[in-house]
């Protein structure tokens, strides 16, 4: 009975959180189109989130490309289909692995960073100080950060994809003596706009989800340092969960369009 009550309470609090996040999202869209626009802060956030994530995204992409090629090579060799590696790797990276892995890495790096930063600003009354000084903190802190992640994530995904393909090429070059031109000719032969466009569009939604969840958790952080830790942690957990849900919806919608 107690367990049932606990499950009911947890479900209740989850649904309340989803409701609050929805209101937060609606407020974001309302505030995003209202003056004054905080361009300077937006650019600063784009630099912080984009430039400072490059190395992490690059290393992750490189290793993914390398590992994917190394692990599929022996199996494809058995079937005499090694020449299909550039096509297979490029399609899987561009359509799925690149966007989702980069988004997960960014949920960890950027989402938790936003959650902790805004949470810390909340508990130390910096957000209140901003409001008292006549600045709309939602506009200055939330809108700029959400927009920055939404704009930067697609660029980071493209960067990660390119590095991943380069990692894959390195394996093919070392193990199969495949030239740079041959490898990337096969990559571009295999890729179509139908692979690139939907994958890029969904990364905007990934960025939006990471930014909104990180800001939501931080902006409404409970008092105390424990609250800041919780905000950072739950921002990553909820954002990661949302990424997979968005990915599923994106694949589903893309599939419908292909069927048509």
């Amino acid at each position, binding site marked *: 009975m107690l367990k049932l009550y606990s499950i009911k309470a947890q479900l209740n609090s989850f649904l309340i959180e989803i409701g609050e996040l929805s209101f937060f999202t609606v407020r974001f869209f309302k505030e995003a189109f209202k003056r004054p626009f905080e361009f300077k802060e937006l650019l600063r956030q784009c630099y912080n989130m984009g430039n400072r994530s490059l190395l992490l995204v690059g290393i992750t992409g490189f290793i993914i490309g390398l590992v994917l090629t190394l692990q599929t090579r022996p199996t494809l060799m058995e079937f005499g289909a090694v020449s299909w590696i550039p096509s297979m790797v490029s399609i899987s990276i561009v359509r799925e692995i690149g966007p989702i892995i980069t988004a997960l890495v960014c949920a960890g790096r950027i989402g938790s960073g936003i959650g902790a930063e805004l949470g810390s*600003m909340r508990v*130390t*009354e910096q957000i*209140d*100080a901003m409001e*008292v*000084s*006549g*600045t709309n903190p939602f506009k200055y802190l939330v809108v700029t950060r959400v927009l920055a992640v939404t704009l930067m994530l697609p660029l980071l995904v493209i960067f990660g994809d390119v590095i991943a393909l380069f990692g894959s090429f390195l394996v093919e070059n070392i193990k199969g003596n495949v030239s740079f031109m041959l490898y990337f000719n096969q990559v571009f032969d295999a890729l179509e706009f139908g692979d690139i466009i939907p994958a890029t569009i969904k990364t905007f939604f990934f960025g939006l989800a990471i930014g909104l969840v990180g800001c939501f958790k931080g902006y409404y952080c409970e008092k105390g340092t424990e609250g800041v830790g919780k905000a950072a942690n739950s921002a990553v957990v909820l954002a990661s969960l949302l990424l997979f849900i968005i990915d599923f919806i994106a694949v589903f919608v893309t599939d419908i369009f292909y069927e048509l």
Partner: protein
Amino acid sequence: MIEHQNISNRDIVLEIKDLHKSFGDNHVLNGFNMQLFQGENLVIMGKSGSGKSVMIKCLVGLLEADSGTITVMHNDITKLDQKALDILRADIGFLFQGSALYDSMTVRENLEFPLRRHTKKFGKDMDTEKLVIEALDNVGLISAIDLMPSELSGGMKRRVALARTLILQPKIILYDEPTSGLDPITAKEIIILMQDIQKKYGTSSLIITHDVDCARAISDRMILLIDGIDYAVGTYAELSTSTDSKIKAFFKH
């Protein structure tokens, strides 16, 4: 209940009538009343959790009161829209308990930040650099202009926060526990600084504290906030000699 008899003839710059604020079943303010006169230093004392900070946050619109009226310089802030409230806030300085300096900005940027939304107050020829230097000079911290808040001590942070509060040249300054967390010497320096500012600019100050020394040094009048109401109003001398047990409890050392 003690009523202060010598109410000043000066203008009322801030008035609260019958303020109620609850958080669920926790009734924090149960009909709080107060008046702040032009150029006065009014201290509000109360135990931790008595609703002092809630009251001061209602005053600047950070929290919404359940009922009651809050009049700041003849404006009922409960009826103002966001734009009008933002304009009014330029005349109200707020020194936060933990200083609330923006971590990611230098001292200079911290001071410039409030100016960005209130350019109208200083006109088109506003000299930001001059205003920043003047505000820092008031608190004796010009040398810290390019430092980050993390490089400052607790007392320095409080001074910079005070400079940030002063930069908009407010008519009313609200101090939320200005000496809490500071050693006695630094606390005394902050009190002297508050007195100097009051003399120099003629501001009206509302000081929330539970530091009796601070209250004695700075108050023209005091209000004791007990059980969510203005339980006692009077000068430090009047209240500190009261025989009421609830009032006496505040002045025991």
